[in-house]
């Protein structure tokens, strides 16, 4: 084993150890932080930074062209998909699905959004700009905002 390979292995191992330490700290945070949004803050560490560091370390260890490119694919795909999941989860959490503790928020920029009182259409696609009749029809179909609020309170 030449010196050059040894240097690459060492750098790769250091990257993997950094990623694993970050993942461990994030797991402790996931266990100890108070609500969904702060747990999401912890959750992004192994999802993005930790996985990227470990992928870089693995690529430095494996060093053959197909492996390196496939690991690049893994890193790029994680960078593309982590924001999507985080967006969906954060949106659902702000609507009140996840026991969000609003007393812990410093700023709630979506507090006066009109569709927050709306029980929420399908979660994935952006709803078109709300006309009144549409919102009323939707809430009637779901049993009205009042009953939803009651069932939410009983979740606590």
């Amino acid at each position, binding site marked *: *084993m030449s010196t050059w390979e*040894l240097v690459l292995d*060492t750098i*790769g*191992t250091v990257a*993997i*150890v950094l*990623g*694993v*330490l970050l*993942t*461990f700290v*994030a*797991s*402790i945070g*996931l*266990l100890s932080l108070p609500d*969904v949004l702060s*747990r*999401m803050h912890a*959750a992004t560490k*192994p*999802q993005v930074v*930790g*996985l990227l560091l*470990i*992928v870089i*370390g*693995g690529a430095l*260890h*494996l060093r*053959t062209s*197909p*492996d390196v490119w*496939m*690991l690049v*694919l*893994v890193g790029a*795909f*994680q960078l593309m*998909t982590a924001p*999507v*999941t985080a967006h*969906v*989860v954060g949106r*659902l*959490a702000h*609507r*009140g*699905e*996840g*026991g969000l503790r609003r007393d812990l928020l410093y700023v709630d920029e979506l507090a006066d959004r009109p569709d927050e009182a709306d029980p*929420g259409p*399908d*979660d*994935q696609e952006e709803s078109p700009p709300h006309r009144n009749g549409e919102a009323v029809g939707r809430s009637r179909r779901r049993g009205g905002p009042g009953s*939803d609020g009651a*069932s*939410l309170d009983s*979740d606590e």
Partner: protein
Amino acid sequence: MSTLPALLDAVLVVSLVLLGLSAVLVVVRLLRGPTGLDRLVALDVLVAEFLCGLVAYAALTGDSSLVPVVVAISLVGFLGSTTVARFVRRGTGR
């Protein structure tokens, strides 16, 4: 100079053990997590840690046949978590 590769392997084994420990912590959150969104976030992190473990294991053994598995799991994990997020609705958040 000859002891360095053994040291690197030992460090990789220790980091794999640490990954397993953090996966245990995430599973505790997955089981306790009061709402469905907590479990969803914990499941996402568990998938990410599984990917980390696979890459670290491939780096430890120098066996590159695990790399396509990592690609496949990263795709499927994203699909799974977004699909579950669709079904976490108001009132059924548990």
